[in-house]
């Protein structure tokens, strides 16, 4: 079974440029998460989707970040414009469904963003 797929794996851009990350969750997983992991830190949740609905985006900096999950499958996270402080690893995860109990999150390998 294929895991969570993310692309690109690495991205280097100049500040003020736009950037987008793509995530393909495990087939059949209704819940999708985007995390940001700063250097030397643990992942922090940015947004969680239940199917195509964003149900928790309280940590998403909405002035420059946006996300979408059309048709409740693949998802794209966008930053426009990027700032130096956005340099981090962006992780995507998916689970069968959110809710109480044993709904393990499976993580992708992440996209490492460097903003110059």
């Amino acid at each position, binding site marked *: 079974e294929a895991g969570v797929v993310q692309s690109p794996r690495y991205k280097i851009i100049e500040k003020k440029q736009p950037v987008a990350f793509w995530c393909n969750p495990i087939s059949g997983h209704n819940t999708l998460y985007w995390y940001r992991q700063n250097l*030397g830190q643990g992942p*922090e949740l940015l947004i969680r989707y239940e199917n195509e609905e964003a149900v928790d985006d309280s940590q998403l900096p909405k002035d420059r970040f946006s996300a979408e999950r059309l048709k409740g499958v693949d998802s794209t996270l966008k930053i426009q414009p990027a700032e130096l402080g956005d340099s981090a690893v962006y*992780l995507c995860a998916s*689970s069968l469904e959110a809710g*109480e109990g044993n709904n393990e999150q499976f993580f992708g390998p992440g996209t490492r963003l460097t903003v110059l």
Partner: protein
Amino acid sequence: AQSVTQPDIHITVSEGASLELRCNYSYGATPYLFWYVQSPGQGLQLLLKYFSGDTLVQGIKGFEAEFKRSQSSFNLRKPSVHWSDAAEYFCAVGGYTGFQKLVFGTGTRLLVSP
């Protein structure tokens, strides 16, 4: 709000020696607790989880962890470390919804010496 503290930024252990990684959590009720491992260039992989019941939980790759409510701890242990265990280890706490809202610690990097 829940929080997690991993007091050791990095630990070096000799191959074959035992390992214990510390994790302390803060949460107002019975927490859901997790340990993840992250190898370079890889996503996070779940090692084990505690939801309820037996406070000593077994995970993959020979790891185990013990939930101690009185100490607000969930330390990870392995009796004999292998070189392939070198990685970053993250403790995480979930609220009453389990996996739904994970808060991670800052991680402990494990180095394994020959």
